[in-house]
């Protein structure tokens, strides 16, 4: 692949230390850089959800201020883009839909697949930027032998973000730079200080950007209210594994598989959410060992290191961001978009809506959504 060191790069700047350091780093390397901030969500929209904690979160005015400050210091052109409509369509509404279907979605992946590495790449191209750069902890490499762009885990295992990037296509990977992929967070902060990036000491953001307090159920309830949807539309029963009704609830979106808290039921041993059944609005609870499953079906699978699955392949599979990838066998089905994953050992709380990402060591083979 030709490397165009002199071409224009658009840096997706959030105002945080990672993307700010990316801009500073590329600038130091002598590249032509423009900084762009995607305004994704209006934090004032659901004011009942914002609190002191909302400050400094993604898309707040403070973040835009920080990003602009960094861009000015670096002397690069900088603009804020209004991506609110597409974010709502591509991320927020699907996020809510998933919860209502009894699944537990990963909005950051939706945002990556359909906003950051899709619309944003096109927008940048329109400005003459052939490449975009972000502050993700992941690595992209070109494999001469296979003729494919590969995605690998970031050097900092604790910060690796490939779990959220499994949906990237070859075209998207070919246009993306992850300049922090070889660095640890500690090294990035040191580098930021060396490069005199104004936000070098800014704390990391943790929660999903549009739900600053992390309370997804409250967000969904507030969104319903804003849209004029009756809040109790999703109430139903809590049942045990034998089908016996043991309580009621105010919506399946308040529950996620494996969760112990907030059941509001007194019982002899701890109860966990085993499954949510959106059709009947039922939430099934049971003992911890009822959560163990030996296999899953992944849908809408995206392959990265290989063009597709033709035979059984061994991989380590990660079923949520904090999960340690477990050894498994990937099996093709008749449908190219669906893959069966057989774990060597049963896994706890395989949660529909989360991603299953397939690894071979550092290499991301591909991934899909847990059906």
């Amino acid at each position, binding site marked *: 692949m030709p490397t*165009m060191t*002199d*071409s*224009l790069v658009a840096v997706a700047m959030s105002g945080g230390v990672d993307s700010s350091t990316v801009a500073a780093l590329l600038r130091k390397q002598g590249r*032509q850089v*423009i900084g762009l*901030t995607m*305004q994704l969500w209006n934090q004032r929209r659901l004011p009942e959800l914002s609190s002191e904690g909302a400050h400094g979160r993604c*898309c707040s*005015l403070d973040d*835009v201020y920080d990003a*602009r400050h960094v861009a000015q210091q670096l002397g690069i*052109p900088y*603009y*804020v*883009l*209004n991506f*609110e409509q597409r974010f709502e369509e591509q991320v927020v509404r699907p996020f809510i839909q998933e919860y209502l279907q009894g699944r537990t979605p990963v909005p950051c992946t939706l945002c990556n697949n359909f906003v950051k590495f899709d619309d944003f790449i*096109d*927008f940048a*191209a*329109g*400005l*003459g*930027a*052939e490449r975009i750069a972000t502050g993700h902890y992941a690595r992209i490499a070109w494999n001469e032998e296979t003729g494919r762009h590969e995605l690998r885990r970031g050097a900092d295992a604790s910060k690796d973000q490939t779990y959220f990037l499994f949906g990237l296509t070859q075209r998207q990977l070919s246009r993306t730079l992850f300049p922090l992929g070889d660095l640890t967070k500690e090294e990035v902060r040191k580098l930021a200080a060396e490069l005199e990036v104004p936000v070098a000491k800014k704390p990391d953001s943790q929660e999903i950007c549009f739900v600053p307090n992390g309370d997804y159920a409250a967000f969904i309830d507030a969104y319903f209210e804003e849209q004029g949807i009756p809040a109790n539309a999703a109430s139903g029963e809590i049942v045990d594994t034998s089908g016996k009704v043991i309580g009621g609830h105010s919506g399946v979106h308040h529950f996620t598989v494996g969760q112990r808290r907030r059941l509001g039921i007194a019982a002899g041993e701890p109860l966990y959410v085993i499954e949510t059944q959106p059709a009947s609005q039922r939430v099934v609870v049971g003992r911890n060992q009822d959560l163990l499953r030996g296999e899953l079906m992944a849908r809408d699978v995206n392959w990265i290191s290989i063009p597709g699955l033709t035979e059984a392949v061994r991989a380590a599979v990660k079923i949520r961001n904090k999960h340690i990838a477990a050894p498994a066998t990937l099996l093709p089905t008749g449908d190219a978009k669906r893959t069966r994953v057989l774990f060597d050992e049963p896994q706890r709380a395989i949660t529909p809506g989360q991603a299953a990402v397939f690894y071979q060591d550092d290499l991301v083979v591909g991934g899909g959504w847990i059906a």
Partner: protein
Amino acid sequence: MRVDMAVRIEVIAVVNRFYFDHNATTPVSSEVLAEHIEALREVYGNASSIHHNGQRAKQALEEARRRVAAAIGAESREIVFLSGGTEAGNLAILGVVRASTKLRKHVITSVIEHPAVMNTCAQLEREGVEVTYLPVSPGGVVDPDSVRQTLREDTVLVTLMHANNETGTVQPVEAIGRITREAGIAFHSDGVQAFGKIPVGVNTLGVDLYTISGHKIYAPKGVGALYVRKGTKLVPLLFGGHHERDRRPGTENVPGAVALGCAAAVAVRDLEAESSRLDALRNRLERAILERVPHSGVNGGAVARVPNTTNIYFDGVQGEAMVIALDLAGFAVSTGSACSSGAVEPSHVLTALGLKKERARASLRFSLGRSNTAAQVDALAEAVVEAAGRLRSLSPAYAHHD
């Protein structure tokens, strides 16, 4: 799909910048600047003070007031200096409505007003005043008959802009003024985008209140004027000393007023020559773009407009991307309105004209001014053709056109 990199790299380092956003603000002209600096340097007295320094400031202030009054055919005591167009609009609307002793109050405005008027009316609604927002024709014009039909027993104010900031459309203020005069109802017109571009005479127009902003006519930011016809009942928004005939307290911004007085006089002096020059340049720009960019057109072009403004849609192009692309190429133009983060929101004016959201988002405003030349206009047209072509080549939305 291939992007022409060579051109792009150059433009990042562009030195020449051409400014085509005079409806947003204007640079301070050298004539105005000279008087402003002189006043800043020499006229430092408080215009309310008894001593010589104060008297000198008072003299400069009143001279400025006379110049502004003369520029719009008013008497000097009918001019209130204040901080700018937004404050003038607020004072006119809130001041008149709150001065009315009627039990029920009704205000008439339009759907294409500037936020300074629109959001002031929204505030009145929160305070229990009823507001009628008149629609506009597809060209962007309020029908005077609709004003007549909307007038009620309890109507206390009609507030309609003179020229629209986004399309340049000129409203039939004179015809509406006849109606409000006949009905004996106060009439405010926001003239921020009209004064300096077309002739303004408050008596010809039949307005009782008229808003002027300094920074749209080559004076600095932070100064403006409200014309208040004598006899119009108005209560102040702010409380303090007896400045500006008890209508606007606060130590007078004399250097600002001096600059506004100078700018107003210059605007009137140069109006005829400058407006015909800008009209020709604007038409040259429109012709060049419309001839060379397919599926483009003028929003609100078939009606009376101020000579410096054109608003053009480019179907299949995101206005936001186009503004950034043109900025990188050295041209300042605008689209929609900026929200607090600096991101662009679609224009409420264009959707009020009946444009679909997509077309409103695909529209750019070009507003010309003193510094622009034919050569600049040609360069801008060239850059617009290039940017529209490149953005369309990347746009899935545009694919169905060809």
